[in-house]
């Protein structure tokens, strides 16, 4: 193999598994260390800069970082990255003074944001400090998009939502709430220099089955129903509730039902339990609230008596897979099952709707009626119109919406400064030695053996009685410290200098996870199998040196390195050094980096 090019900013970025997996590339170990140091405001700001909604995400994020966490490869469970974010948010001081100043004199360019969800708000936050005049349109009565209308208060208190939405709206954003935009042309005609479409995927899918006409009054589309509960138009539901669907929306529907009158709430899902889309922790929380989840039940009919819904019938199926792994749900032949219900909530998917965009504006749509949007720049075929969040490529989650917002903001800024949108500014990176003395590091290199700590929850009796009472209590500071100590500091990199190595083997002997091998060079395939421990995880890189004195090379498998620094401690010549790598995704105009 060729010697590894560690000057490529992506090389060490990839070693920081959590940060790499985070769509917004939040410097996770950086804020976790700040939490152990008790610097909650600093930890909050590291988050805020990257993911804009630390308090919200610290409660609701889909956490793609956690399955990626290195800790999960050396023991049972990843670090509770998400819930540590909440610790920073809950314990910070007033952070407003740390936020960017908004110029009083604007730069003369006006931007319209359609939709007030996390992606539009991110664009606003990145561009307002650069002097843009920003107008935000949303049909709801306040900002936040689905974070307000969909995510229930028992998971996300309104106070937390308001705080973080207001940090942005207070940047001098011109808000136009309760304004449904029914024509893009109308907006363009107002002379905006750029328009960002962050309208999400606001339409819930219904389920047409025999009996619907008669039962309709008690059959609700999940996301519409959740919004109407959130805005307090709906305050109760029947005692017996059926929730159809296996995703997170279904979980929010059933748990909300339990809080406003539902006593026998059941989730019925077509697929096997293990293949449900909902996150494992959402399923656990639902079952903890006495909500059975019945798998392999395909809905067949709504049953009504005297013009009122009384229940539904289901066909029992089982999953069969063909040789390509494609699933079909086949009836098992049992008689249909009847489940009683006073209300049915249909939570089987969301769709985009772009009926408000005229088709003669030069903005192309594809065969699925979705706008044609550039993956890198977020620009549509109409140069002034950009898309992001759920509106761009269908429903995802808050953190993805934020990541889109950052990239779209970079594009809009480049566009309005007349620059090439494809020529993206490079990320900010910094690599600094952590050496303090012969055997001392400025990071805490000891590897704690503790298992993952569980976040405590409020008493079920209380939370089920109050829709707005937050279920999770968050870590107390002592537990937060211990959980934070589980982080392996994957951003403190092992950096090797070929010329210093005397091939004494000390690093090989000391490495607890057998990462380092000195061996004759070879092709990657071959090398992976002749290391001290097989490097079977091909998603992780091999770090290869140039030829050493004996002609061999140093090969380090990054897969399960604990970043413990022992190799560097035992190296007599400092051929290994532990160096902190900071990687920040570029924001528009570098507005947030110091």
């Amino acid at each position, binding site marked *: 193999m060729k010697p590894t090019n560690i000057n490529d900013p992506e090389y060490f970025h990839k070693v920081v598994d959590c940060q790499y997996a985070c769509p917004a590339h939040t410097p996770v170990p950086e804020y976790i260390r700040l939490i152990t140091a008790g610097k909650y405001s600093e930890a909050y700001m590291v988050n805020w800069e990257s993911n804009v909604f630390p308090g919200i995400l610290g409660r609701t994020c889909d956490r793609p970082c956690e399955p990626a966490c290195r800790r999960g*490869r*050396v*023991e049972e469970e990843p670090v509770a990255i998400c819930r540590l974010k909440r610790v920073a948010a809950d314990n910070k001081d007033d952070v407003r003074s740390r936020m960017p100043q908004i110029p009083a004199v604007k730069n003369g360019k006006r931007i319209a944001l359609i939709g007030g969800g996390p992606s539009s708000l991110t664009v606003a936050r990145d561009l307002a400090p650069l002097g843009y005049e920003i107008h935000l349109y949303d049909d709801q009565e306040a900002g936040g998009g689905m974070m307000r209308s969909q995510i229930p208060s028992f998971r996300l208190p309104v106070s937390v939502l308001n705080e973080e939405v207001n940090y942005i709206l207070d940047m001098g954003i011109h808000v136009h709430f309760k304004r449904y935009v029914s024509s893009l042309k109308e907006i363009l005609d107002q002379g905006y220099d750029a328009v960002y479409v962050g309208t999400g995927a606001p339409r819930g899918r219904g389920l047409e089955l025999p009996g619907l006409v008669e039962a309709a009054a008690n059959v609700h589309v999940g996301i519409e129903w959740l919004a109407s509960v959130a805005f307090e138009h709906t305050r109760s539901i029947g005692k017996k509730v059926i929730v159809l669907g296996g995703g997170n929306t279904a979980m929010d529907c059933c748990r909300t039902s339990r809080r406003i009158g539902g006593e026998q709430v059941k989730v019925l899902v077509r697929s096997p339990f293990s293949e449900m889309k909902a996150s494992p922790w959402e399923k656990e929380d639902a079952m903890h609230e006495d909500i059975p989840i019945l798998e392999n039940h395909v809905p067949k009919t709504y049953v009504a008596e005297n013009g009122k819904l009384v229940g539904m019938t289901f066909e029992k199926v089982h999953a069969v897979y063909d040789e390509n792994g494609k699933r079909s749900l086949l009836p098992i032949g049992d008689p249909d099952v009847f489940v009683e219900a006073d209300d049915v909530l249909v939570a089987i998917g969301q769709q985009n709707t772009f009926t408000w965009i005229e088709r003669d504006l030069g903005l192309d749509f594809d065969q699925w009626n979705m706008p044609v949007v550039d993956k890198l720049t977020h620009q549509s075929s109409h140069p002034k119109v950009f898309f992001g969040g759920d509106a761009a490529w269908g429903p995802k989650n808050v953190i993805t919406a934020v990541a889109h917002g950052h990239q779209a903001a970079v594009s809009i800024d480049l566009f309005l400064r007349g620059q090439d949108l494809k020529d993206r500014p490079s990320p900010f990176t910094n690599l600094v030695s952590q050496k303090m003395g*012969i*055997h*001392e590091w400025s990071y805490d*290199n*000891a*590897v704690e*053996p503790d298992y993952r700590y569980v976040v405590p929850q409020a008493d079920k009796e209380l939370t089920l009685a109050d829709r707005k009472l937050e279920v999770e209590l968050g870590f107390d500071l002592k537990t937060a410290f211990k959980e934070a100590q589980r982080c392996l500091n994957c951003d403190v990199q092992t950096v090797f200098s070929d010329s210093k190595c*005397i*091939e*004494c*083997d*000390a690093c*090989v*002997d*000391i490495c*607890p*996870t*057998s*990462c380092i091998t000195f061996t004759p060079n070879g092709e990657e395939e071959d090398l992976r199998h002749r290391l001290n*421990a*097989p490097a*079977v995880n091909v998603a992780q890189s091999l770090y290869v040196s140039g030829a050493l*004195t*004996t002609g061999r090379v140093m090969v380090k498998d990054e897969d*399960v390195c*604990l970043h*413990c*620094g*022992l190799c560097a*401690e*035992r*190296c*007599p*010549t400092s051929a290994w050094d532990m160096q902190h790598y900071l990687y920040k995704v570029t924001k528009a105009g570098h507005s947030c980096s110091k």
Partner: protein
Amino acid sequence: MTYIRPKFRHPSAPTNDLGYTKREYEGALSTLCAGCGHDSISGAIIQAYFELSVPPHRIAKLSGIGCSSKTPTYFLGKSHGFNSVHGRMPSVATGANMANRDLMYLGVSGDGDTASIGMGQFVHIVRRNLNIVYIVMNNGCYGLTKGQDSATADAGSKSKAGSVNPFQPIDLAGLALELGAGFVAQSFSGDKPQLIELIKEAVKYPGFALINVISPCVTFNNNPGSTKSYDYVREHIEATATVDYVPLKTEITAAYAEGTGTDVEMHDGTFIRLEKLAAHSNPYNRLTAITALQVARMKNAILTGLVFLEPDPTDLHETLDTSEVALNKMTETDLCPGKQELENINASLR
């Protein structure tokens, strides 16, 4: 400085026949200087016993005093151990071995511990042929007391302070051959693959097995002009032959057919395989082995590998016709047969 080894190991770390990973053969974190050759030898010891699937509690490790003699703390943490007085490891090992022949003995010493203060003990453990693996971590100096020349320092070798050693070195391998040792090997801490094989063979060898390992002291004897530095040793090394330890279950016939290697059977049916015997050395002949060592010395070369092997040794238990049963397995009546028995013995001597 980190004193606690992280708990985690590679998730697909190999296991041996006992189902153990190398972790069961490790010890505490070393406190030796970073880069010390002794640590590499500890690594090789761990690897060798791991690969041999020896139950750690069946091993007794003994040492004297010195950086080298400290190393038993850093390997085989689950084995028995005794850190004796400077240069006195051989007598403690002899006592232990005589009392309990069921354990496997590993003696670890330094060049000072063996060739200076311990010389009187060393020569006797060799000539008595105690069944033990005796590893000398040879750095040509007294590392622990800050690098004074030892008795194995080569004449003309320069110390870190700049003084040149005027005395002739003691050649431990040559001396052991002279005294009738049945297994004599030399190696280099920087050549793990060879060292691991030699340790495995020595462990299997049913008599006294010496491995004299050149082991640079990075702190006091790794300077230009020293003949025990990493660079000097790498430039002057000359290996006898490739050696492989062949466990019982391995099929050996295939290699025989090729006719290039020579297999030597050990008492338990396992083999030591020597490949491509170097022309000048025949490890089954004491005379040519002595010559090979002398020739290498004349050429300023360091001969490594298996220097001499006597396939069928007579160890001390056999010579003294001791009991087959270890003392700790005898009953009180066996151990204290009583006054009458003593009188019988005394009478027989009159």
